[in-house]
């Protein structure tokens, strides 16, 4: 296949996709003769929707459509992730532009009969949050989507990730064709530099700079590596991109290969993402079949191969040198830099590592030009960023907003605020390398530099919202526990230092800490971050330092008053039974492991003898009448 044939193929397929093109956030310029099906039913088969039964829903739709002889009129499409993961299974009907949420297998018959046959929208399946007078009819009306600008996710939830034709229809591989026919490799690097794109994996290093370093490295064998080892707890944007639009990542890697003179690509993906691995392999096979991978790509002299390497569960492998060691089949331990991977990486040959979201940004940059991309976002952090919203937030899921959007917009407008009548306490960004941002900084623009100034980092984009039921000391302890577990053990500042810090935090959580504990922890944090070899150790103290900075009062309450204001640290809690709520069911007494809950002699209620209580909280967990009070 050559570039002219690719273009024809795309135009041909685009006609079959005209319904979705009209709804696409960035519709390409093609004439939209309506050919093909009159209606399309899009069922989201992203990771979250699958666990809500999306495959059964899709199968039932197919069944009903066939049984009622609607195949000519209606086409069923299994798309990637739509983004509003708490509303799964999400079903959209085009061109009527209706979004149904929480669709189960049982609802399918009603949708087919009422909507597809009679033309009446099924009101009960529309999204109507509490306090909203009329239900939202489609995605465009929902605030969750209103503030978003989709570049990386432009195809997610629109195309079938398992069909290359649909990717090609939406200008897929057009950037590659443009590069191969119109641009020199240096011009591609230049375009990426102009875009101002910074690495989306955490560090925020200039991507154009990295590419030019690899391009200028001597050697015939160079490697382009895609880091899909998304290890930050609370981050799932890379998973979603791989599952929803795998060809976009391949195209980004191909462009990197062309620009830097590399001929070999590796995708290092987590073993925890089996669906992503399956769809990537399928995409690679399809691309190879259509002469988009291999020798003489699109009849040019450019050759590129991509292989998948599956990781085995080690967070430290997100670090560049550790990742390379793991790709080579060894323990994933980092090594000192220099030499940098662009000088001596995989097989001691020049290599470059970018993460999934970074590669996913490349095709639109080449297609539309670096200047177009640079105009989005802020001056020093250009473009958009995908965030994974999770935790104590109404709308969980994936959102893509321009850099510089404020935290307030993201949490309250897009995310719908904190549910259950609770209040916003902090947002955690950057996973175990990041920090917590308190309510007084809600108006901070989200970009690389502003977050750093607050003691957090952008990281890969996980954003976890916490309400007043989260204890910040406990959160710091949670992340330190993570770092202790994931420290590879190579250098003592990290291996021993994180362990000691965890012990200090445990002492604080249990009320055993002395008044100088924070001071000692601060000085140890300094050693760990200064003397560790790799990013894991260098950033491990961040969650502790940022919570100490913004929530000092909470630490003091633990240390000085032996009190946990959020009611999380069990050792500091006392349990008692509210007599007027207690029904005397005896469930708590039967569950108490140390038998300190007794029945009053003269009435049916129970009471807790706190002298021997071990603060395990079983009574609180099992009580069905909210009669156990913890304070």
């Amino acid at each position, binding site marked *: 296949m050559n570039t002219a044939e690719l273009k024809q193929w795309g135009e041909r397929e685009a006609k079959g996709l005209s319904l979705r093109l009209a709804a696409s956030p960035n519709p390409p310029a093609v004439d939209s003769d309506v050919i093909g099906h009159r209606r399309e039913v899009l069922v989201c088969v992203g*990771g*979250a929707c*699958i*666990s*809500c039964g999306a495959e059964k829903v899709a199968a039932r739709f197919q069944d009903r459509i066939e049984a009622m002889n609607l195949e000519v009129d209606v086409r069923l499409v299994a798309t990637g992730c739509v983004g509003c*993961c*708490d509303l*799964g299974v999400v079903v959209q009907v085009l061109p009527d532009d209706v979004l149904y949420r929480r669709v189960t297998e049982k609802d399918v018959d009603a949708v087919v009969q009422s909507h597809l046959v009679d033309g009446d929208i099924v009101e009960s399946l529309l999204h109507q949050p509490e306090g909203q007078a009329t239900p939202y009819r489609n995605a465009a009306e929902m605030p969750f989507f209103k503030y978003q600008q989709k570049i990386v996710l432009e195809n997610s939830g629109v195309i079938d990730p398992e069909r290359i034709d649909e990717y090609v229809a939406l200008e897929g591989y057009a950037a590659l064709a443009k590069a191969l026919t119109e641009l020199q490799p240096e011009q591609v690097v230049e375009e990426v530099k102009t875009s101002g794109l910074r690495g989306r994996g955490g560090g925020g290093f200039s991507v154009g700079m990295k590419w030019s370093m690899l391009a200028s490295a001597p050697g015939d064998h160079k490697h382009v590596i895609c880091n899909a080892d*998304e*290890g*930050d*707890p*609370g*981050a*799932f944007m890379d*998973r979603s991109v791989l599952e929803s639009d795998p060809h976009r990542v391949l195209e980004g890697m191909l462009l990197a290969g062309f620009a830097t003179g590399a001929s070999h690509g590796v995708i290092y993906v987590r*073993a*925890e*993402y*089996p669906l992503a691995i399956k769809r990537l392999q399928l995409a690679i096979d399809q691309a190879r079949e259509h002469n988009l991978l291999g020798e003489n790509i699109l009849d040019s002299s450019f050759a590129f191969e991509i292989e998948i*390497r*599956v*990781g*085995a*569960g*080690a*967070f430290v492998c997100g670090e560049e040198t550790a990742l390379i060691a*793991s*790709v*080579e*089949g*060894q*323990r*994933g*331990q980092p090594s000192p830099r220099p030499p940098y991977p662009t000088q001596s990486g995989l097989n001691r040959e020049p290599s470059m590592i970018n993460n999934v979201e970074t590669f996913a940004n490349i095709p639109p940059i080449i297609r539309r030009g670096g200047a177009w991309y640079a105009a989005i976002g802020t001056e020093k952090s250009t473009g958009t960023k995908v965030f*994974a*919203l*999770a*935790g*104590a937030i109404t709308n*969980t*899921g994936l959102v893509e907003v321009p850099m510089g959007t404020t935290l307030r917009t993201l949490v309250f407008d897009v995310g719908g605020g904190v549910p259950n009548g609770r209040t916003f306490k902090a947002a*955690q960004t950057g*996973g175990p390398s990041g920090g917590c941002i308190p309510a007084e900084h809600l108006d901070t623009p989200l970009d690389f530099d502003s977050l750093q100034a607050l003691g957090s980092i952008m990281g890969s984009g*996980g954003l*976890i919202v*916490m309400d007043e039921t*989260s204890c910040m000391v406990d959160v710091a302890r*949670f*992340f330190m526990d*993570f770092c202790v577990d*994931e420290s*590879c053990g190579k250098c003592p500042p990290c291996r021993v230092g994180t362990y000691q810090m965890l012990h200090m935090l445990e002492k604080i959580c249990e009320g055993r800490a002395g008044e100088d504990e924070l001071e000692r922890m601060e000085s140890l944090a300094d050693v760990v971050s200064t003397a560790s070899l790799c990013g894991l150790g260098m950033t491990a103290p961040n969650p502790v330092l940022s919570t100490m900075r913004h929530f000092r009062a909470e630490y003091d309450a633990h240390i000085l008053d032996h009190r946990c204001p959020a009611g999380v640290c069990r050792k500091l809690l006392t349990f008692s039974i509210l007599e007027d709520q207690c029904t005397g069911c005896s469930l708590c007494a039967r569950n108490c492991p140390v038998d300190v809950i007794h029945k009053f002699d003269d009435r049916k209620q129970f009471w807790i003898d706190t002298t021997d209580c071990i603060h395990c909280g*079983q009574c609180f*967990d099992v009580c069905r009448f909210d009669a156990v009070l913890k304070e």
Partner: protein
Amino acid sequence: MPTQLAHIESVSRSGATVAASEFPLFDELNATIAHFDHSPKALIQVLHRAQELFGYLREDVIDHVSRELRLPVSKINGVIGFYSFFSRVPQGKHTVTVCMGTACYVRGADQLVRGLNKLLGVEPGDTTSDGRYSVRCARCVGACGLAPVLVIDDDVHGNVQTARLKNVVRQYK
């Protein structure tokens, strides 16, 4: 392979003794090893396949890999020990994984761990005495929108409440 030996034990090409019923498994493992050209750099990929085929990384399987990839057993054990995905002990029929990612933790994953302990009587990392369930904790399964999350075998169960734990787990017999 002499046929009179095939029904008991036999000596594989690599020198380890192998039960006849496992010949096909070793054949498949060898196919993977051949696919990677016996390269020691493919060790992790080969171990993945071995664990898939045998359920866990048995000593004789590790010996086999060691010979085929020309890597010392000590080195292979070093790699197995480093990565949390590999196991050297048999796993239960079903693996119950509690996601301990931040989002799940904030939404009460530790309560699920305690609930499982009560229900099955084992701590994370252990297997029930009837060999039915292995309980483990995962760092983050990337389904944060559904927190707290429980993964049983390949099925993801979202928004799991401790009270419903029994119903969810007992679907897997």
